[in-house]
Protein backbone atom coordinates (compact mmCIF):
# COMPACT_ATOMS: atom_id res chain seq x y z
CA UNK A 1 0.00 0.00 0.00
CA UNK A 2 1.28 3.45 -0.96
CA UNK A 3 0.33 6.19 1.47
CA UNK A 4 0.97 9.84 0.80
CA UNK A 5 0.25 13.01 2.72
CA UNK A 6 1.35 15.99 0.68
CA UNK A 7 1.11 19.72 1.14
CA UNK A 8 2.68 22.22 -1.19
CA UNK A 9 2.03 25.88 -1.91
CA UNK A 10 2.79 26.81 -5.51
CA UNK A 11 1.80 30.48 -5.26
CA UNK A 12 -0.67 32.72 -3.48
CA UNK A 13 -3.60 31.26 -5.44
CA UNK A 14 -2.88 27.54 -5.54
CA UNK A 15 -1.84 25.01 -2.93
CA UNK A 16 -1.85 21.24 -2.88
CA UNK A 17 -3.26 19.42 0.13
CA UNK A 18 -3.54 15.75 -0.75
CA UNK A 19 -3.99 12.55 1.23
CA UNK A 20 -3.87 9.29 -0.71
CA UNK A 21 -3.99 5.59 0.02
CA UNK A 22 -3.22 3.46 -3.00
CA UNK A 23 -3.58 -0.30 -2.50
CA UNK A 24 -2.31 -2.85 -5.07
CA UNK A 25 -4.36 -2.50 -8.25
CA UNK A 26 -5.44 0.64 -10.04
CA UNK A 27 -6.55 3.80 -8.31
CA UNK A 28 -7.68 6.63 -10.57
CA UNK A 29 -6.98 10.23 -9.62
CA UNK A 30 -9.66 12.23 -11.36
CA UNK A 31 -10.28 15.93 -11.48
CA UNK A 32 -10.42 18.93 -13.77
CA UNK A 33 -7.37 20.44 -15.48
CA UNK A 34 -5.16 22.39 -13.11
CA UNK A 35 -6.45 20.57 -10.04
CA UNK A 36 -2.98 19.25 -9.11
CA UNK A 37 -3.09 15.69 -10.48
CA UNK A 38 0.22 15.76 -12.36
CA UNK A 39 1.96 17.64 -9.55
CA UNK A 40 0.82 14.93 -7.13
CA UNK A 41 2.39 12.24 -9.34
CA UNK A 42 5.61 14.26 -9.66
CA UNK A 43 5.88 14.68 -5.91
CA UNK A 44 5.30 10.96 -5.32
CA UNK A 45 7.97 10.18 -7.96
CA UNK A 46 10.39 12.60 -6.28
CA UNK A 47 10.59 14.92 -9.30
CA UNK A 48 9.03 17.85 -7.49
CA UNK A 49 10.03 18.82 -3.97
CA UNK A 50 7.00 19.54 -1.83
CA UNK A 51 6.81 21.77 1.23
CA UNK A 52 5.82 18.65 3.12
CA UNK A 53 5.56 15.11 1.74
CA UNK A 54 5.11 12.09 3.95
CA UNK A 55 5.18 9.19 1.51
CA UNK A 56 5.35 5.55 2.58
CA UNK A 57 5.36 2.32 0.63
CA UNK A 58 4.45 -0.27 3.23
CA UNK A 59 6.76 0.52 6.12
CA UNK A 60 9.41 2.18 3.93
CA UNK A 61 9.51 5.96 3.93
CA UNK A 62 10.27 7.66 0.61
CA UNK A 63 10.56 11.10 2.17
CA UNK A 64 13.73 12.80 0.98
CA UNK A 65 14.70 9.97 -1.37
CA UNK A 66 15.78 10.98 -4.90
CA UNK A 67 13.61 9.64 -7.76
CA UNK A 68 16.07 6.92 -8.75
CA UNK A 69 15.85 5.33 -5.30
CA UNK A 70 12.05 5.17 -5.10
CA UNK A 71 11.58 2.25 -7.52
CA UNK A 72 8.65 4.01 -9.09
CA UNK A 73 7.86 4.08 -12.80
CA UNK A 74 6.06 7.05 -14.27
CA UNK A 75 4.51 6.95 -17.73
CA UNK A 76 4.32 10.55 -18.94
CA UNK A 77 1.51 12.00 -21.00
CA UNK A 78 4.09 12.81 -23.70
CA UNK A 79 5.57 9.30 -23.22
CA UNK A 80 9.08 10.83 -22.98
CA UNK A 81 10.77 8.14 -25.03
CA UNK A 82 14.45 8.95 -25.47
CA UNK A 83 14.68 10.02 -29.14
CA UNK A 84 18.32 9.02 -29.61
CA UNK A 85 17.80 5.45 -28.37
CA UNK A 86 16.06 2.54 -30.08
CA UNK A 87 12.91 1.05 -28.59
CA UNK A 88 14.95 -1.76 -27.04
CA UNK A 89 17.52 0.68 -25.63
CA UNK A 90 14.69 2.75 -24.17
CA UNK A 91 13.28 -0.27 -22.38
CA UNK A 92 16.76 -1.47 -21.41
CA UNK A 93 17.53 1.93 -19.81
CA UNK A 94 15.66 1.10 -16.62
CA UNK A 95 15.41 -2.69 -16.89
CA UNK A 96 17.54 -4.94 -14.70
CA UNK A 97 18.76 -6.97 -17.71
CA UNK A 98 18.64 -7.29 -21.49
CA UNK A 99 16.34 -10.29 -21.24
CA UNK A 100 13.85 -8.33 -19.09
CA UNK A 101 13.81 -5.60 -21.70
CA UNK A 102 13.30 -8.08 -24.55
CA UNK A 103 10.57 -9.94 -22.66
CA UNK A 104 8.64 -6.76 -21.94
CA UNK A 105 8.80 -5.70 -25.56
CA UNK A 106 7.36 -9.13 -26.43
CA UNK A 107 4.68 -8.90 -23.75
CA UNK A 108 3.64 -5.49 -25.03
CA UNK A 109 3.67 -6.93 -28.59
CA UNK A 110 6.25 -4.53 -29.96
CA UNK A 111 9.32 -6.75 -30.27
CA UNK A 112 9.24 -6.06 -34.04
CA UNK A 113 10.13 -2.39 -33.40
CA UNK A 114 13.04 -3.15 -31.05
CA UNK A 115 15.66 -1.63 -33.33
CA UNK A 116 13.65 1.40 -34.36
CA UNK A 117 13.96 4.93 -32.97
CA UNK A 118 10.85 6.54 -31.40
CA UNK A 119 10.34 8.99 -34.29
CA UNK A 120 9.55 6.09 -36.63
CA UNK A 121 6.97 4.48 -34.33
CA UNK A 122 3.23 4.86 -34.67
CA UNK A 123 1.30 6.35 -31.73
CA UNK A 124 0.22 2.91 -30.55
CA UNK A 125 3.71 1.42 -30.86
CA UNK A 126 5.25 4.31 -28.96
CA UNK A 127 2.62 3.90 -26.24
CA UNK A 128 3.41 0.21 -25.90
CA UNK A 129 7.16 0.87 -25.77
CA UNK A 130 6.61 3.48 -23.04
CA UNK A 131 4.56 1.01 -21.02
CA UNK A 132 7.15 -1.73 -21.60
CA UNK A 133 9.87 0.63 -20.38
CA UNK A 134 7.91 1.50 -17.25
CA UNK A 135 7.06 -2.12 -16.41
CA UNK A 136 10.48 -3.60 -17.28
CA UNK A 137 11.97 -1.70 -14.37
CA UNK A 138 9.95 -4.01 -12.08
CA UNK A 139 8.58 -1.02 -10.17
CA UNK A 140 7.04 -1.17 -6.72
CA UNK A 141 4.65 1.60 -7.73
CA UNK A 142 3.35 2.54 -11.18
CA UNK A 143 2.25 6.09 -11.96
CA UNK A 144 0.37 6.80 -15.18
CA UNK A 145 -0.18 10.42 -16.25
CA UNK A 146 -2.96 10.31 -18.86
CA UNK A 147 -0.93 7.90 -20.98
CA UNK A 148 -3.71 7.07 -23.45
CA UNK A 149 -5.02 10.56 -24.15
CA UNK A 150 -3.46 10.78 -27.62
CA UNK A 151 -4.75 7.43 -28.90
CA UNK A 152 -7.77 6.72 -31.06
CA UNK A 153 -10.73 5.09 -29.38
CA UNK A 154 -10.21 1.46 -30.52
CA UNK A 155 -6.51 1.40 -29.66
CA UNK A 156 -7.22 3.14 -26.37
CA UNK A 157 -9.67 0.38 -25.41
CA UNK A 158 -7.34 -2.43 -26.49
CA UNK A 159 -4.38 -1.05 -24.56
CA UNK A 160 -6.48 -0.57 -21.45
CA UNK A 161 -7.43 -4.25 -21.46
CA UNK A 162 -3.82 -5.34 -21.96
CA UNK A 163 -2.60 -3.00 -19.24
CA UNK A 164 -5.22 -4.33 -16.84
CA UNK A 165 -3.84 -7.86 -17.31
CA UNK A 166 -0.27 -6.76 -16.61
CA UNK A 167 -1.16 -4.69 -13.54
CA UNK A 168 -3.27 -7.53 -12.15
CA UNK A 169 -0.34 -9.91 -12.62
CA UNK A 170 2.14 -7.51 -11.02
CA UNK A 171 -0.23 -6.60 -8.18
CA UNK A 172 1.44 -3.25 -7.45
CA UNK A 173 -0.12 0.06 -6.39
CA UNK A 174 -0.92 1.95 -9.58
CA UNK A 175 -2.07 5.55 -9.62
CA UNK A 176 -3.69 6.64 -12.87
CA UNK A 177 -4.37 10.26 -13.71
CA UNK A 178 -7.20 10.42 -16.20
CA UNK A 179 -10.06 12.50 -17.51
CA UNK A 180 -11.65 9.52 -19.20
CA UNK A 181 -14.45 7.63 -17.49
CA UNK A 182 -13.65 4.64 -19.74
CA UNK A 183 -10.24 4.24 -18.11
CA UNK A 184 -11.83 4.02 -14.67
CA UNK A 185 -14.41 1.46 -15.82
CA UNK A 186 -12.06 -0.77 -17.83
CA UNK A 187 -9.32 -0.84 -15.23
CA UNK A 188 -11.86 -1.42 -12.43
CA UNK A 189 -10.22 1.43 -10.67
CA UNK A 190 -10.91 2.87 -7.27
CA UNK A 191 -11.41 6.59 -7.66
CA UNK A 192 -9.99 9.52 -5.75
CA UNK A 193 -11.35 12.91 -6.74
CA UNK A 194 -9.14 15.98 -6.61
CA UNK A 195 -10.29 19.55 -7.00
CA UNK A 196 -8.43 22.80 -6.45
CA UNK A 197 -5.51 20.86 -5.02
CA UNK A 198 -7.54 18.96 -2.43
CA UNK A 199 -8.60 15.32 -2.33
Amino acid at each position, binding site marked *: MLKARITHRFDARFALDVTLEVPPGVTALVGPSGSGKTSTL*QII*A*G*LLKADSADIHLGSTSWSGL*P*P*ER*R*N*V*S*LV*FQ*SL*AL*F*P*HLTALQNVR*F*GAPSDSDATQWLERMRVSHVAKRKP*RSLSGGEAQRVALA*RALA*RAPSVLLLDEPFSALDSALHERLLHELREHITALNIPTLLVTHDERDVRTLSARTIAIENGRT
Partner: protein
Amino acid sequence: MNGPLWLSLEIASIATLLTTLLALPLASLVSHRRLFVLDALLTTPLVLPPTVLGYFLLVVMGNHTVIGRAWQAVFGSSLVFTTTGIVFAAVITSLPLVLQATRAAIEGVDVTLVNAARTLGANRFKTYTRITLPLASRGMCAGIVLGFARALGDFGVTMMVGGNLPGETRTASLAIYDAFIADRATEALHLSLMLAGFSIVLVSVATLLGRRPHAHA
Protein backbone atom coordinates in the same frame (compact mmCIF):
# COMPACT_ATOMS: atom_id res chain seq x y z
CA MET B 1 50.96 22.98 -46.33
CA ASN B 2 51.52 26.71 -45.96
CA GLY B 3 53.39 27.45 -42.67
CA PRO B 4 51.16 30.23 -41.24
CA LEU B 5 47.99 28.36 -42.22
CA TRP B 6 49.27 25.17 -40.61
CA LEU B 7 50.16 27.15 -37.47
CA SER B 8 46.65 28.64 -37.41
CA LEU B 9 45.09 25.18 -37.72
CA GLU B 10 47.35 23.84 -34.99
CA ILE B 11 46.52 26.70 -32.60
CA ALA B 12 42.80 26.54 -33.36
CA SER B 13 42.75 22.77 -32.81
CA ILE B 14 44.48 22.88 -29.42
CA ALA B 15 42.45 25.91 -28.32
CA THR B 16 39.19 24.24 -29.36
CA LEU B 17 40.05 21.10 -27.42
CA LEU B 18 40.79 23.16 -24.29
CA THR B 19 37.69 25.31 -24.82
CA THR B 20 35.46 22.25 -25.11
CA LEU B 21 36.87 20.76 -21.91
CA LEU B 22 36.26 24.06 -20.12
CA ALA B 23 32.82 24.69 -21.60
CA LEU B 24 31.20 21.50 -20.30
CA PRO B 25 31.59 22.18 -16.56
CA LEU B 26 31.29 25.96 -17.01
CA ALA B 27 27.98 25.62 -18.88
CA SER B 28 26.41 23.88 -15.89
CA LEU B 29 28.02 26.34 -13.47
CA VAL B 30 26.94 29.58 -15.14
CA SER B 31 23.37 28.38 -15.59
CA HIS B 32 22.91 29.06 -11.87
CA ARG B 33 21.25 32.43 -11.57
CA ARG B 34 23.55 33.59 -8.77
CA LEU B 35 26.63 33.24 -10.98
CA PHE B 36 25.45 35.73 -13.58
CA VAL B 37 28.58 37.86 -13.08
CA LEU B 38 30.83 34.91 -14.04
CA ASP B 39 28.53 34.26 -17.00
CA ALA B 40 28.86 37.89 -18.10
CA LEU B 41 32.66 37.88 -17.62
CA LEU B 42 33.10 34.75 -19.73
CA THR B 43 30.85 36.15 -22.46
CA THR B 44 32.43 39.63 -22.57
CA PRO B 45 35.31 38.64 -24.94
CA LEU B 46 32.62 38.20 -27.59
CA VAL B 47 31.85 41.93 -27.60
CA LEU B 48 35.19 43.50 -26.63
CA PRO B 49 37.24 45.05 -29.44
CA PRO B 50 40.09 42.60 -30.20
CA THR B 51 42.72 45.19 -29.37
CA VAL B 52 41.18 45.80 -25.94
CA LEU B 53 40.96 42.08 -25.20
CA GLY B 54 44.50 41.61 -26.53
CA TYR B 55 45.74 44.42 -24.32
CA PHE B 56 44.18 42.92 -21.19
CA LEU B 57 45.56 39.48 -22.00
CA LEU B 58 48.98 40.98 -22.66
CA VAL B 59 48.87 42.61 -19.24
CA VAL B 60 47.54 39.50 -17.47
CA MET B 61 50.00 37.10 -19.09
CA GLY B 62 52.93 39.52 -19.05
CA ASN B 63 56.06 38.99 -16.99
CA HIS B 64 54.98 41.56 -14.39
CA THR B 65 51.97 39.60 -13.14
CA VAL B 66 51.66 36.58 -10.88
CA ILE B 67 50.48 34.45 -13.81
CA GLY B 68 53.31 35.57 -16.08
CA ARG B 69 55.97 35.09 -13.40
CA ALA B 70 54.59 31.70 -12.34
CA TRP B 71 54.62 30.55 -15.97
CA GLN B 72 58.19 31.80 -16.39
CA ALA B 73 59.27 30.01 -13.21
CA VAL B 74 57.70 26.68 -14.18
CA PHE B 75 58.38 26.55 -17.92
CA GLY B 76 61.41 28.83 -18.17
CA SER B 77 59.92 30.97 -20.94
CA SER B 78 57.59 33.88 -21.31
CA LEU B 79 53.90 33.35 -22.06
CA VAL B 80 53.49 36.38 -24.29
CA PHE B 81 54.87 36.41 -27.83
CA THR B 82 54.83 32.60 -27.92
CA THR B 83 52.62 29.99 -29.59
CA THR B 84 51.38 28.90 -26.15
CA GLY B 85 50.37 32.49 -25.41
CA ILE B 86 48.24 32.76 -28.52
CA VAL B 87 46.68 29.36 -27.79
CA PHE B 88 45.51 30.80 -24.45
CA ALA B 89 44.32 33.94 -26.22
CA ALA B 90 42.40 31.77 -28.71
CA VAL B 91 40.80 29.91 -25.79
CA ILE B 92 39.57 33.18 -24.30
CA THR B 93 38.22 34.47 -27.63
CA SER B 94 36.46 31.25 -28.63
CA LEU B 95 35.17 30.23 -25.19
CA PRO B 96 32.06 32.48 -25.24
CA LEU B 97 30.84 30.93 -28.49
CA VAL B 98 31.35 27.35 -27.31
CA LEU B 99 30.05 28.11 -23.82
CA GLN B 100 26.85 29.81 -24.95
CA ALA B 101 26.13 27.09 -27.52
CA THR B 102 26.78 24.34 -24.96
CA ARG B 103 24.62 26.04 -22.40
CA ALA B 104 21.75 26.61 -24.83
CA ALA B 105 21.99 23.02 -26.04
CA ILE B 106 21.92 21.58 -22.52
CA GLU B 107 19.10 23.86 -21.40
CA GLY B 108 17.20 22.95 -24.57
CA VAL B 109 16.97 19.28 -23.63
CA ASP B 110 13.36 18.44 -22.77
CA VAL B 111 13.12 18.30 -18.98
CA THR B 112 10.53 15.51 -19.26
CA LEU B 113 13.22 13.26 -20.75
CA VAL B 114 15.54 14.08 -17.87
CA ASN B 115 12.72 13.33 -15.41
CA ALA B 116 11.92 10.08 -17.22
CA ALA B 117 15.53 8.96 -16.85
CA ARG B 118 15.47 9.73 -13.12
CA THR B 119 12.28 7.70 -12.58
CA LEU B 120 13.91 4.84 -14.49
CA GLY B 121 16.60 4.60 -11.84
CA ALA B 122 19.31 6.80 -13.33
CA ASN B 123 21.18 9.08 -10.94
CA ARG B 124 22.14 12.61 -11.95
CA PHE B 125 25.47 11.55 -13.49
CA LYS B 126 23.98 8.74 -15.58
CA THR B 127 21.15 11.02 -16.68
CA TYR B 128 23.66 13.71 -17.69
CA THR B 129 25.97 11.37 -19.62
CA ARG B 130 23.36 9.07 -21.20
CA ILE B 131 20.52 11.50 -21.88
CA THR B 132 21.43 15.18 -21.56
CA LEU B 133 24.81 15.18 -23.32
CA PRO B 134 23.83 12.98 -26.28
CA LEU B 135 20.70 15.05 -26.85
CA ALA B 136 22.67 18.30 -26.56
CA SER B 137 25.55 17.07 -28.70
CA ARG B 138 24.44 18.61 -32.01
CA GLY B 139 24.09 22.10 -30.53
CA MET B 140 27.36 21.70 -28.66
CA CYS B 141 29.18 20.58 -31.80
CA ALA B 142 27.81 23.58 -33.69
CA GLY B 143 29.29 25.85 -30.99
CA ILE B 144 32.59 23.97 -31.05
CA VAL B 145 32.87 24.37 -34.82
CA LEU B 146 32.13 28.11 -34.55
CA GLY B 147 34.70 28.38 -31.75
CA PHE B 148 37.26 26.68 -33.99
CA ALA B 149 36.44 29.08 -36.83
CA ARG B 150 36.80 32.05 -34.46
CA ALA B 151 40.19 30.82 -33.23
CA LEU B 152 41.32 30.07 -36.77
CA GLY B 153 40.62 33.53 -38.11
CA ASP B 154 41.63 35.73 -35.18
CA PHE B 155 43.79 38.74 -35.99
CA GLY B 156 43.66 41.48 -33.37
CA VAL B 157 44.12 39.47 -30.18
CA THR B 158 46.80 37.29 -31.79
CA MET B 159 48.66 40.38 -32.94
CA MET B 160 48.57 41.93 -29.46
CA VAL B 161 49.50 38.81 -27.50
CA GLY B 162 51.75 37.05 -30.00
CA GLY B 163 53.41 39.86 -31.89
CA ASN B 164 54.07 38.72 -35.42
CA LEU B 165 57.05 36.37 -35.20
CA PRO B 166 57.61 34.20 -38.28
CA GLY B 167 57.31 30.50 -37.49
CA GLU B 168 56.28 31.24 -33.89
CA THR B 169 53.22 33.47 -33.80
CA ARG B 170 52.64 34.49 -37.41
CA THR B 171 49.30 32.88 -38.08
CA ALA B 172 47.46 32.92 -41.42
CA SER B 173 45.59 36.15 -40.58
CA LEU B 174 48.82 37.94 -39.69
CA ALA B 175 50.60 36.52 -42.75
CA ILE B 176 47.83 37.92 -44.98
CA TYR B 177 48.30 41.35 -43.42
CA ASP B 178 52.09 41.10 -43.86
CA ALA B 179 51.81 40.01 -47.49
CA PHE B 180 49.35 42.81 -48.25
CA ILE B 181 51.54 45.48 -46.65
CA ALA B 182 54.63 44.15 -48.45
CA ASP B 183 52.74 44.21 -51.76
CA ARG B 184 52.82 40.42 -52.18
CA ALA B 185 49.29 40.41 -53.58
CA THR B 186 49.29 36.82 -54.89
CA GLU B 187 50.36 35.40 -51.52
CA ALA B 188 47.73 37.49 -49.72
CA LEU B 189 45.08 36.32 -52.18
CA HIS B 190 46.00 32.63 -51.86
CA LEU B 191 46.02 32.72 -48.07
CA SER B 192 42.78 34.69 -47.95
CA LEU B 193 41.05 32.23 -50.27
CA MET B 194 42.25 29.26 -48.21
CA LEU B 195 41.13 30.85 -44.94
CA ALA B 196 37.80 31.88 -46.46
CA GLY B 197 37.32 28.35 -47.79
CA PHE B 198 37.96 26.83 -44.37
CA SER B 199 35.59 29.33 -42.76
CA ILE B 200 32.79 28.67 -45.26
CA VAL B 201 33.09 24.91 -44.71
CA LEU B 202 33.15 25.32 -40.92
CA VAL B 203 30.17 27.68 -40.81
CA SER B 204 28.25 25.33 -43.14
CA VAL B 205 28.94 22.43 -40.77
CA ALA B 206 27.87 24.54 -37.79
CA THR B 207 24.67 25.59 -39.57
CA LEU B 208 23.90 21.99 -40.46
CA LEU B 209 24.51 20.84 -36.91
CA GLY B 210 22.44 23.69 -35.52
CA ARG B 211 19.39 22.55 -37.45
CA ARG B 212 17.05 20.13 -35.80
CA PRO B 213 17.58 16.58 -37.03
CA HIS B 214 15.00 15.50 -39.61
CA ALA B 215 13.53 18.97 -39.81
CA HIS B 216 11.76 19.59 -43.10
CA ALA B 217 11.34 22.83 -44.93
